[in-house]
């Protein structure tokens, strides 16, 4: 029998909890009371997150932590980066030019080596078992920080495949904090204004609806109507910014810089969303599980990522957004140094790398190291719990003090026995 409690335990308390807090979050301090200019200025200081998820496990040896001319090093050479003494794999020429903006942690040592459990465990920060499913990082930020003054949804996921409203990520926080997924970079159903309506008509009928709601709620409890107004407002803001999500109109020159690839397109959409004010953008990329033919696969995959990731770092730096945007690129684990019989690399949580940039993290730093063959971390590695503390701290959230309130059950934001990685923080 499975000794662990099931994730949906305490679902009841979540329901109650949300009932009490949804309104408070929805009608935060900024709701519609400030001018667009002021909102823009205020938003500029608001912290945001770009989270790039390379599903299946990117090989650290073919990217951030190459070991050329060693037993397990593989065929690729290394190249110099913009940071003297730091080398990346030759598959990452563009990221090498951005190294002075990146912070690479090379001694990540986690516990799960299966995709089915690892993907969720890593993105939930693998806290101690509390008998509840923890939120993915995006849902956590949606809860803790909410939408920015832009009123756009707090947590958006640009991904290959299907889109829609993905509640699973939210864990015990409840579906409200799930992600709004743009499948194949396309907006979810019904996002675009209906062809039969003009902007003016749409605005006017919406004002009528608000008027009817005001009269209805005048002598009733306000909770439901307020919540309804909030989602209609969000819908309006989202519809207004439909241009942000339109991949068909991306300028050719920029697209060449990001790469005319899936991840290139999606990264550009992500940049537009961050510029528009989405709090947390996750970009998903699949197909990194290179058990067979790792080197040809990496030669194809890594440069696509390299180009897209370097381009967005460059753009975020140019607009100044990087100063308050935390950027993360990672997988659920790394890949084995040992090369298997299919010329592939298998799952390797023991020693792998995560790249970060922007808000709160030390630019140009390389934190920790693996041993000469890359088979293990030198000294003590960092588990995912420590990485979560690092992210929270970078965003100005004291994860040692702030707690979730799960129906008056206080829950820590991240593994309470672990600490932030100081060397990675400014």
């Amino acid at each position, binding site marked *: 029998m499975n000794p662990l409690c099931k994730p*949906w335990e305490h679902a009841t308390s979540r329901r109650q909890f949300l009932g009490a807090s949804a309104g408070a979050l929805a009608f935060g301090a900024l709701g519609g009371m400030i001018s667009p200019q002021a909102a823009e200025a205020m938003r500029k200081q608001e912290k945001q997150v770009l989270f790039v998820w390379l599903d299946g496990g990117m090989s650290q040896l073919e990217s951030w932590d190459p070991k050329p001319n060693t037993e397990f090093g593989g065929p690729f050479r290394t190249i110099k980066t913009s940071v003297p003494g730091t080398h990346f794999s030759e598959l990452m020429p563009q990221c090498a030019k951005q190294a002075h903006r990146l912070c690479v942690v090379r001694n990540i040592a986690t516990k799960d080596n299966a995709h*089915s459990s690892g993907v969720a465990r890593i993105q939930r920060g693998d806290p101690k078992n509390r*008998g509840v499913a923890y939120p993915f990082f995006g849902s956590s930020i949606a809860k803790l920080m909410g939408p920015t003054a832009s009123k756009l949804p707090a947590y958006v996921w640009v991904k290959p495949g299907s889109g829609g*409203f993905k509640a699973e990520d939210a864990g015990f926080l409840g*579906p409200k904090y799930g992600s709004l997924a743009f499948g194949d970079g396309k907006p*979810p*159903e*019904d996002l675009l204004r209906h062809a039969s309506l003009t902007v003016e008509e749409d605005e006017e009928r919406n004002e009528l609806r608000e008027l*009817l709601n005001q009269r209805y709620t005048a002598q009733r409890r306000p909770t*439901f109507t307020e919540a309804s107004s909030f989602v209609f407002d969000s819908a309006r803001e989202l519809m207004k910014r439909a241009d942000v999500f339109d991949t068909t109109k991306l300028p050719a020159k920029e697209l060449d810089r990001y790469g005319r690839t899936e991840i290139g397109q999606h990264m550009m959409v992500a940049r537009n969303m961050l510029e528009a004010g989405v709090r947390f953008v996750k970009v998903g990329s699949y197909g990194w599980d290179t058990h067979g033919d790792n080197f040809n696969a990496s030669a194809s995959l890594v440069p696509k990522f390299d180009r897209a990731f370097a381009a967005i770092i460059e753009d975020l730096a140019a607009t100044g957004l990087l100063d308050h945007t935390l950027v993360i690129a990672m997988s659920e684990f790394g890949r084995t140094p040992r090369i298997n019989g299919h010329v592939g690399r298998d799952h390797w949580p023991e020693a792998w790398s995560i790249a970060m940039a922007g808000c709160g993290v030390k630019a140009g730093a390389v934190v920790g190291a693996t041993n000469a063959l890359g088979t293990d971390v030198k000294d003590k590695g960092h588990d995912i719990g420590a990485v979560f503390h690092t992210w929270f701290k970078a965003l100005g959230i004291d994860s040692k003090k702030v707690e979730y309130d799960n129906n008056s059950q206080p829950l820590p934001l991240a593994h309470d026995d672990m600490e932030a990685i100081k060397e990675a923080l400014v």
Partner: protein
Amino acid sequence: MQLLRPSATLTRWLLLAALMASHGAFAAEPLQLQVDKLIVAKAAKQPFAAPADDAEFLRRAWFDFNGGIPSAEETKKFLADKTADKRAKLIEQLVAAPRFAEQMAEAFNIQLMERNGSNDEWRSYLTESFRANKPWDQMTREILSPDFKDEKLRGAGWFMTRRLDKVGQQDTDYPGLTRDAGRLFMGVDLQCCQCHKHLTVKDYKQVDFNGLFVTFQNTKLQAASGDYKTAWVQEAMMTNKYEFVSVLSNVKGATGPRVPLGVEVPLPDPAKDEIWLVPPDPKTRKPGVPKFSPLKELAARLASPENPLFARNIANRVWWQLMGRGFVEPLDLNHSDNPASHPELLDLLAKELTDHKFDLRWLIRELALTQTYQRASLLPVGAKSPPEELFTVAKERPLSAEQLARAFLAATGEQERVVGGKAWEGVEGKKHTQKDFEKAFLAAFANAAKEPELNVNPTLRAALFLRNNDLVLWSLQRRKGNLLDRVAALTDAGKVADELYLAILSRPPVAEEKAELEKYLTKHAATREKALGHYAWAMLSSMEFFTNH
């Protein structure tokens, strides 16, 4: 060794039940009056909302007992009726109509399956059972101990077979079935007791979870074959107790099938009893059929007048269904440290329901006749936020996605065309079906699977759906006989307002609303038809339409 634990709460319930029974004067009064007395007594000096006006009552009763909204004609007729007992008559009519069983089946399907798929045989089992007004204890036994060979009853088994279906590579979710059975039929969420005693609820012990768990874990999901036309669950032989150990204290325990917080089922003794109905055949390797069915024995003891939590749970849930809030909240955390808001009233309902042989139709009719049910949702003057648990004001309740789809089609006058398939002649473009509407409304408004639907919960998805969905806007285009067609033909703004408000909100407009509409139509005189569509849209997207109030 396990004994029945006489908890303080149980003792109190039994005492109260005995008191009630001996209280002659009290018992003589109809239940509806006793309910109102106890509600008023508890509210002390808090102001009560006025009685709901006829229109509000009519709409509420329709949603609750029919699942849809009345037509403009029906509304007008009811409002014009001057007879004193017209509300009681309406309740009688609605509860006696065929739609009542369908509405009950819909409500119980949502409550018991929590959007975890759909199944036609299960739905028709529920509908037929409510149509026959089958007692709730009997239904519960049929659901928890299904007869998979009976054509009419096997649908009930979907409650269990759906939950035992394997999802991907995960283990069969016996703990999930255990948890749901406790939550839904007894109002106790025992999940935390799987591995140890409950940390915050002292009534819930590890043995309570495991007594249910052992019963379900003894089953195996089998595919349809031979006599079995659907997937079914096979029970294995059980002659030993299930042993468990607390991961916190290492204390061991053992139990056979057991009603949570109740009695344990004695196991057969292979030395003394004949344990096989059909013994296993070693030659053909056919597994035998055990004489002892833990499911059947457990279901008989769980869904029984002897099990006080069984009656309390259903009384609490029926009250929640009609009043928007249970006496015990959350509905699945019945225990002595989480007392009911109205302990005597819940005890009374549980007892009366038991005495009436778990006749839900009777209980619902009684509750519908109370002043508490028939109160307005408008707050009494001066009351800013009266405590919900006092039931001084009618609470706004969520409408299910199905109710919304139905009400939307009825209000826009597209019901006959879409549902009945009539008068499609001359209609250009795609011919929409009832299924299209149900599917779209479910996708926009139903909760995620396995999330209980308990509260009004506006979502971004729903807002986008209402604003931009094809079906929504299609319904608001002028088409022969629909709402837009009817109002576009009217020249008088007052008459337009009457028609719109009666059709959509089931009430006549007030003067201010009439004036507003007239002003709006004057402004949009050049594009009157389109403007009427927008006005109707605004009404259909408003909270007044979207809640049961």
